[in-house]
């Protein structure tokens, strides 16, 4: 990792971790929890939606699967004297949801692009219908509850917040590792031209299934933390198309296929949504304002904020370098290549 990259990550995660200790207002930390939930989801979605180019609209189904797994398991059990048992169960939830993802992906990933999006959103509604109707397991529309956490009232949100910071770090760490390994290169090839990738020996099926399984596994773990946080879950909120749309919008806004883009998107959209809901909530105008902001950004920065800004900066640098160089300088030696791999650095 470049030194600037390490520094950026240290500052970002240092500030994130410090926030719930510096600020005690519940609404701020609560907003932090939901921002982190979406940042983690968008970052995880990006592994398969951004890197592999498979625009899944079904991730909320796996978020819900993780939430229900956690709630069903702890429904009649204690959460431990310190309330940490549900967090310790996260790796198991993640692994279970990832295996589920392998099975689903093995079938769904035979389709591509728009068909894949439709297949996965169908999956979402199938899972939601199951959650509504498997009464003995999920409690149906009555919902299902798990014991509340025995955390200190003054800092109740803090443990959830910190676990979500860890999950975000996990997701971004995996994204970083993917971008800097053969897996990321293979995924980018799959995203660009899967048929040709197959023709040059890329393990297409393996690498895209791996990305899908890891991605939904993280979404499942975040769902489990969410279930513990809200303690009572209902099908329409646990398997919610708005969660799917939220993470996809955030990844698009910040920049698909980049390390920081989806996280940036979440840190802009979740607080903005809350603010707009607070300001215009009474009139429902906030939904229109939300959509308008999004349309505007998509019009002006179609590839997302980070890639568009990066592109602008590179072009400016090339122009200034060209101006200062000998007029007969070969264009090939100017600055574009210095940090060429658009998506990597």
């Amino acid at each position, binding site marked *: 990792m470049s030194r600037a990259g390490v520094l950026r990550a240290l500052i970002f995660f240092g500030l994130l971790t410090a926030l719930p200790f510096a600020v005690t207002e519940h609404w701020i930390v609560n907003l932090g929890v939901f921002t982190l939930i979406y940042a983690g989801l968008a970052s995880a979605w990006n592994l398969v939606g951004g890197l592999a180019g498979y625009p899944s609209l079904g991730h909320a189904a796996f978020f819900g699967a993780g939430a229900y797994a956690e709630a069903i398991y702890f429904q009649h059990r204690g959460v431990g004297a310190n309330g940490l048992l549900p967090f310790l169960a996260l790796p198991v939830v993640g692994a279970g949801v990832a295996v589920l993802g392998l099975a689903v992906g093995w079938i769904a990933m035979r389709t591509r692009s728009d068909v894949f999006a439709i297949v996965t959103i169908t999956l979402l509604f199938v899972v939601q219908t199951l959650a509504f109707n498997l009464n003995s397991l999920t409690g149906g529309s009555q919902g299902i509850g798990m014991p509340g956490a025995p955390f200190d009232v003054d800092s109740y949100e803090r443990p959830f917040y910190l676990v979500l910071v860890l999950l975000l770090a996990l997701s971004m760490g995996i994204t970083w590792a993917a*971008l*800097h*390994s*053969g*897996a*990321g*290169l*293979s995924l*980018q*090839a799959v995203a*660009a*031209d899967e*048929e*040709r*990738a*197959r*023709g*040059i*020996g*890329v*393990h*297409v099926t*393996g*690498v895209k299934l*791996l990305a899908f399984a890891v991605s939904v596994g993280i979404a499942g773990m975040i769902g489990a933390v969410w279930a513990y946080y809200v303690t009572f879950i209902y099908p329409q909120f646990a398997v919610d198309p708005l969660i799917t749309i939220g993470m996809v919008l955030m990844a698009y806004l910040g920049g698909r296929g980049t390390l920081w883009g989806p996280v940036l998107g979440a840190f802009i959209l979740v607080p903005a949504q809350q603010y707009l809901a607070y300001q215009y909530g009474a009139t429902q105008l906030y939904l229109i304002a939300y959509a308008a902001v999004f349309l505007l950004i998509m019009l002006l920065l179609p590839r997302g904020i980070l890639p568009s800004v990066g592109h602008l900066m590179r072009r400016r640098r090339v122009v200034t370098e060209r101006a200062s160089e000998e007029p007969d300088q*070969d264009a*090939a*030696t100017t600055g*574009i*290549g*210095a940090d*060429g*791999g*658009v*998506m*990597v650095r």
Partner: protein
Amino acid sequence: MTTLLEVEHLTKRFGGVTAVDDCSFAVEQGTITGLIGPNGSGKTTVFNLITGYLRADSGRILFSGRPLTKSDPAALYRAGLSRTFQQARIFPRLCALDNLIVAAGHSWHSLFARRRGRDDSRRARELLDEFGLVAHAEHPAGELSYGQRKLLEFASVLMSEPRLVLLDEPTAGVNPTLVETMERHIRRRHAAGFSFLIVEHDMSLVMRLCDPVIVLDRGTRIAAGSPDAVRADPAVLDAYLGQ
């Protein structure tokens, strides 16, 4: 001379159309074999069958003596059978160097290794140098001209050290200078021991580069032999010019 590729009684139908009809031919090691035929004679379908993109309805294909049982382009590529496409398919957002590295014929292990392994990088740079693209190594391949993309695609499929390279119209749509460049690169690689099977419409290029030449018409082989013999064959004249 040993036989590298054998195509035996290959048939492929698309609905009511028989694109390849009981087609048989062989590619000997160390040759530049040309595959020609009028439009719609089944050349690209034959390519897709050989490289595993399509499954044959009947007949079989043997690569270095072993029958190809499953149609898996990736496995065939790793086994030494490379191909290029008619339309120069490269990865436009990846830089030229990454376009080569991604084609290095990967093992599972490399998924978890560094993005640019030292060996792969070195060989990729050597190939870019050989193909005159080294100045573009770190630039997105989408910035290259069409002809350069054709060269880049050709260079990339050499990363696996293939035993047989299938080129689908390597000079279609490029300028005359680049046709010569492409020819020079094919000859140089041929001299280094590579075997080629080439589909090409540029007859003068086929006649001076390829030997033997196989002629397809309506999905089946109608002639094969040296360029001169094929040119004089009445069946070939008939297929190209009609009655």
